[in-house]
């Protein structure tokens, strides 16, 4: 089944694509047989100049997806394609380095993402040395200054000398972006880049991302648990639960008309003081089971619409609206019932 996430035709082919991405960890010691299903059968695509958000709670697998795409973990199953070339085919160090030059990453914790022993800008210098070998020493320094300016760390001549302990959290995150930009990537995987920053500083960093997309043609995969910030900068959204994609589509569509019960729960729980909330605190927010989960929908324990098939068959992503997909038997059934023209019947579980 092709990764038909969006019905709206895109002119360009995807930069980065994942099909059936799966990552399992063995837990419980060397001889145990239990597996933790961190990520299961995830499809996603990132196109040029696009910001895709992955939204989920902790344990949903969103950070693991980022690390799989960054090449930090190797997938248990499934494949990642970069401009159509499979990542598993890239054996040589040179190929991997070239990939890293195109796909970079920004990390969550500003207090642990910079090596405290060196000046914060050192990572930028190293990245240039590794990926832009054509630059001589002076050109390299000029480039570092230019990149610092582009993320708002001015005057760059002062910031190039600073050590991490002299910087605030927001500033450290900007260095993280600067390092990621050094190799002139097409895609930056941003793993919760603002979650650990003060509220009043978050917007500044998010605005930097939007500007980078506009000025430097960088696509972003924005991973977060904060659905409001996802709406703020992203074009498309994937909602993840228990290692699987629960719903995906254009941001405005999904937020205006969530089809998966988990998305609905998530939206109802977001504290938006300007809106009138309707109530229920029945759901206590218990984390999902990802160790040896077995067949069946992983959300069924908390789902108000649970039906018999939910216990037996793991739902697959199926269209529930123009450009919107959800992995839910009930939502798919409703969609099939409603639409006359489109949609194949929901695929049964694998």
């Amino acid at each position, binding site marked *: 089944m092709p990764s038909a996430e969006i019905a709206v035709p895109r002119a360009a082919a995807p930069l980065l694509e994942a099909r059936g991405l799966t990552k399992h960890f063995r837990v419980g010691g*060397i001889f145990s047989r239990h597996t933790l299903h961190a990520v299961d059968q995830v499809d996603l695509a990132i196109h040029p100049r696009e910001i895709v958000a992955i939204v989920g709670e902790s344990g949903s697998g969103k950070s693991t997806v980022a*690390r799989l795409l*960054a*090449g*930090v973990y190797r997938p248990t199953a499934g494949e990642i394609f970069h401009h159509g070339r499979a990542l598993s085919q890239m054996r040589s*160090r040179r190929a*991997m*380095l070239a990939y*890293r*030059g195109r796909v*970079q*990453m920004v*990390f*969550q*914790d500003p*207090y*642990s*993402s*910079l*090596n*405290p*022993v*060196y*000046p914060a800008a050192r*990572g930028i210098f*190293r*990245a240039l040395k*590794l*990926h832009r070998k054509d630059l001589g020493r002076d050109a390299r320094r000029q480039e570092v200054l230019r990149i610092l*300016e*582009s*993320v*708002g*760390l*001015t*005057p760059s001549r*002062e*910031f190039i000398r*600073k*050590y*991490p*302990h*002299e*910087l*605030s*959290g*927001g*500033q450290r995150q*900007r260095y*993280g972006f600067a*390092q990621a930009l050094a*190799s002139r990537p097409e895609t930056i995987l941003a793993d919760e880049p603002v979650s650990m920053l003060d509220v009043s500083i978050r917007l*500044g960093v998010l*605005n*930097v991302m939007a*500007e980078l997309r506009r000025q430097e043609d960088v696509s972003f995969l924005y991973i977060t648990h904060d659905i409001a910030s996802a709406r703020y900068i992203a074009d498309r959204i994937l909602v993840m639960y228990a290692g699987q994609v629960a719903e995906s589509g254009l941001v405005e569509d999904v937020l205006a008309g969530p089809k998966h019960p988990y998305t609905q729960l998530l939206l109802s729980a977001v504290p938006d003081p300007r809106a009138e909330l309707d109530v229920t605190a029945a759901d206590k927010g218990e984390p999902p089971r990802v160790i040896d989960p077995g067949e069946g929908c992983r959300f069924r324990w908390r789902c108000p619409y649970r039906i018999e098939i939910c216990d037996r068959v793991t739902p697959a992503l199926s269209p529930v609206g123009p450009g919107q997909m959800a992995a839910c038997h009930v939502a798919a059934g409703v969609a099939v019932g409603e639409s006359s023209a489109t949609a194949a019947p929901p695929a049964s579980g694998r």
Partner: protein
Amino acid sequence: MYPEVALQDSVPSEAQPGGRAAWLARPGRVGRFLLSNRKATLGFVILGIFIVMAIFAPMIAPYDPNATAFLPTLPPSHDHFLGTTSQGQDIFSQLIWGARQTLLIGGIAGLAATALSVLVGVTAAYLGGLVDHILSVITDIFLVIPALPLMLVIAAYAQGGGMWVLITVIAVTGWSFGARQIRPQALSLRHRDFLESARVRGENSAYIIVFEILPNMISLIVAIFLGAALYAVLAAAGLQFIGLGNADEISWGTMLYWGENNEALLSGSPLWIMAPGACIALLGASVALINYAVDELGNPALRTARRQRGRRAAG
């Protein structure tokens, strides 16, 4: 256009969890700290004296330490500050020259043991899994083996070889303690994002270990080195005292050996034993003092709170 960040915002308001290695970034502060710490100053002074003694031995020592040219068993006098041995050698000269071998053994064996500790500890932590298991078992085995009997066996088997045998023996029996300390710290670093950031940047494993991990562990490595050097000095002295070193070489340990063999305490030249004994103790103490100071440097929680002067009276 881009959200600008003014320079005066650089001074952060949150406490900085700079961690143990942040001091590498501020060498001036390190120097000041070490000099202001009384323990460290004392330790450095004593160690400094011994190092000077060892380096300038030919100029400081009045006589050739091996020369049996003098009257035996002389009491301390103007010509012989510490008297002479029962073979007629000047004890003071022997003491001066002996510093060389003692310091060399302590330093080199300490370095060797530390290098082994770091190698095993970091490799186990970084590679994890089965390798970690195996290396940890090996470390535990070496920890549990009683050092002295092992040293005796090895030294005896090598038939009382000289300095290098001692160094080997000490390194082999002394590395496990350090490895056991290095592994957890390396493990705690392993999940820090800056390591992943380096990998994502494209660095290879060797680079990451040497340039990203090790610099963050310097204070621990220095502390381990000091501990290992202390252990080496005492172990070498002990082995030489028993006679397992090369008795023809001059060091504080061999002085003890010869003094003991000639019943120096009873026969009127007690300084033959007491002087090298005191020096060994002082050297050990100086290393321990410096160790305390380095510990405090790396772990601010250990610093005794000093009330600053000129505090405002409570309102």
